[in-house]
């Protein structure tokens, strides 16, 4: 164990001290935040200026609806036209920037035609309405002519506050309720661990492959494995580089403070689910990591190692593609099928349990733990065998028959 920790510490410290690690971990998110911040600031200022311009501008309208007349909302310079053709011809001369045409079939169609001499800037959204806010209220008051103001208000905002509660089924039928917030927090917990697994296997996997390829290219491995067993080296790398990957994800999470707040809340609300997801995260990471190392060790350099491991990377992305299917039907055939396949099982069972804890059978959870434990053990064992020989392969591509022989040895 001591040697595993020595390797782990070495891998961790050399990885986190790399300039590339610091750039990717801190530099890129800060740069992205800066760029997005500037864009959002500029966009909001532009939109605000446009909005102010619209509010100040003279509004023309053609009312062909036949609705009862009402005084215009105060505070704006309104200009009425008899028909659209006249309005179009004279709006520039009248200083009208926005023309609203209320057609004769307005009551049936609800359609309002907007014409404007304004052009949206690149940073504002195209196609949005130039209609002043109080114009709609004015329309409603005309449609409901004679109704009390509170009725007019309710007609405009029929639902301002709704309380949704989910019924949680148990053995005796639906009884308990759950708020959408709580449901969302559970989803976020599972989603976080899914993202964590995806990112950390991708990030740490990249480091694992890169580190091993560097060692092979530097011809240092034979010296190292004269001191430790290939299994110890593999375990140390998985721990050390896994730690570096987690540190990176943690820093990214801290940079996005909201994520952390959500997670803390989710943990406080449901520590059991947190622990559940953490267990399957560990299985997933060990399974992917050991396979990456074992298969990646067959390559003489980083490029070759990536060629060998691309299928694994693809497998890593499968749950992302099917995540929504699993969430919508947690006990469906797709979800159950993905639970049986070891590489997709960790993420799938996390999703199923978080969406439908009562519907996910305990025996299936326990069986999945046992199944994953078996596959993780097999992956570690087989990868260690390939790793032992693969480490000393320089410039020679092994044949499938040779790999099979190593596995049986």
């Amino acid at each position: 164990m001591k040697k595993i920790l020595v390797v782990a510490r070495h891998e961790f410290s050399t990885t986190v001290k790399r300039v590339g690690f610091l750039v990717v971990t801190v530099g890129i998110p800060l740069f992205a935040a800066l760029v997005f911040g500037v864009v959002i600031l500029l966009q909001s200022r532009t939109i605000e200026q446009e909005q102010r311009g619209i509010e100040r501008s003279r509004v023309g309208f053609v009312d062909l609806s036949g609705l009862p007349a009402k005084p215009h909302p105060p505070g704006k310079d309104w200009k009425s036209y008899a028909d659209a053709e006249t309005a179009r011809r004279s709006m520039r001369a009248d200083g009208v920037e926005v023309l609203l045409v209320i057609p004769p079939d307005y009551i049936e169609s609800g359609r309002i035609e907007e014409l404007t001499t304004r052009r949206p800037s690149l940073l504002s959204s195209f196609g949005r309405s130039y209609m002043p806010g109080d114009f709609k209220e004015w329309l409603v008051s005309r449609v409901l002519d004679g109704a009390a103001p509170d009725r007019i208000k309710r007609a405009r905002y029929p639902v301002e506050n709704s309380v949704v509660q989910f019924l949680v089924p148990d053995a005796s039928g639906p009884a308990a309720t759950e708020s959408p917030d709580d449901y969302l927090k559970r989803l976020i917990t599972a989603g976080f661990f899914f993202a964590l697994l995806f990112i950390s296997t991708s990030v740490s996997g990249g480091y694992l492959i890169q580190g091993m390829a560097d060692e092979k290219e530097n011809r240092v491995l034979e010296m190292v494995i004269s001191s430790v067993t290939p299994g110890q080296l593999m375990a140390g790398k998985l721990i050390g580089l896994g730690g570096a990957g987690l540190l990176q994800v943690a820093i990214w999470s801290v940079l996005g403070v909201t994520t952390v707040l959500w997670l803390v809340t989710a943990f406080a609300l449901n520590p059991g689910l947190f622990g559940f997801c953490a267990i399957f995260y560990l299985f997933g990471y060990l399974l992917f990591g050991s396979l990456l190392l074992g298969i990646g060790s067959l390559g003489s350099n980083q490029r070759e190692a990536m060629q060998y491991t691309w299928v694994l990377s693809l497998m890593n992305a499968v749950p992302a593609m099917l995540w929504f299917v699993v969430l919508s039907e947690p006990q469906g055939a797709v979800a159950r099928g993905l639970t049986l396949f070891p590489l997709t099982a960790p993420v799938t069972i996390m999703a199923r349990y978080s969406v439908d804890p009562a519907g996910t059978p305990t025996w299936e959870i326990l069986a999945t733990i046992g199944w994953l434990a078996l596959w993780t053990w097999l992956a570690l064992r087989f990868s260690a065998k390939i790793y032992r020989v693969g480490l000393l392969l320089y410039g020679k591509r092994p044949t499938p028959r040779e790999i099979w022989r190593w596995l049986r040895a």
Partner: protein
Amino acid sequence: MAALEVEKVVKSYGLKRAADGVSFSVEAGELFGLLGPNGAGKTTLIRMIMDIIRPDEGSIRALGLPVTTDVKDRLAYLPEERGLYQKQRVGDVLVFLGELKGLPHPLARKRADEYLDRVGLLETRRKKMRELSKGMQQKVQIAAVLQHEPALVILDEPFIGLDPANRALVIDLLKQAAARGAAVILSTHLMDQVEALCSRIILIHQGREVLSGPLREVKERHADRSILIETDGPLEGRAEVERIAGKVDGLTRLVLREPPEKFLARLVSEGRTIRHFEHALPSLDEIFLKATGAKP
């Protein structure tokens, strides 16, 4: 107790036998030569000793024990295809390799400095490995191998790429290790280094032992009727002389048709003045070429 005992070790790769029943032992404090042409199976044998690959048959014991992780802490191995972490600092690499050999962190740091000093590279400890020349990197590798003061050291071609001064430095370090009680195994093509350093050798060819034993005995076993002589009067045209094989340090080398003792007696009886007479032993190069059937 022998520092290393290799017993009838066999290793095959498909149909090829890289080691075919090889046996030998190395004593503590001994400098031992492991010789053989390219592809003879030396590296396979060393990798089996270091438990990097496993033998198909036979047994290997180092320091009286099977080679496990604990025993590995007292062994050292410098492979032929070697390098160190290029992007890391020299001192950090040595500390890591020392810790892998079981040295506690503070001791690993102390030893790293000590051995860097011994190879004359203490001032480079904060430099990145890639900033060092190839020869300097090789000295760092030697320091990495010796810093935990192992009981058994195996070096595969340790002198390649070293200039004469650095070669002398490495030889000195290896002699010091042997004097401390470590068994040192040298696998090299440089026969002059083996002759200068090793007391015993084993020569393997196509995975099999071709010859082994103390260096002097091996040479005597392979000695022909060659002598080195300095005397007055001519030696050409004598019936006992098969041929004159040239001059060595001012001495004439003769290949005789009769035993050297008989030839010496004959010269004495003739009243010749003999200033030097020596039974010329073959060089290790000659034995190597003869035993492996290789052509010079």
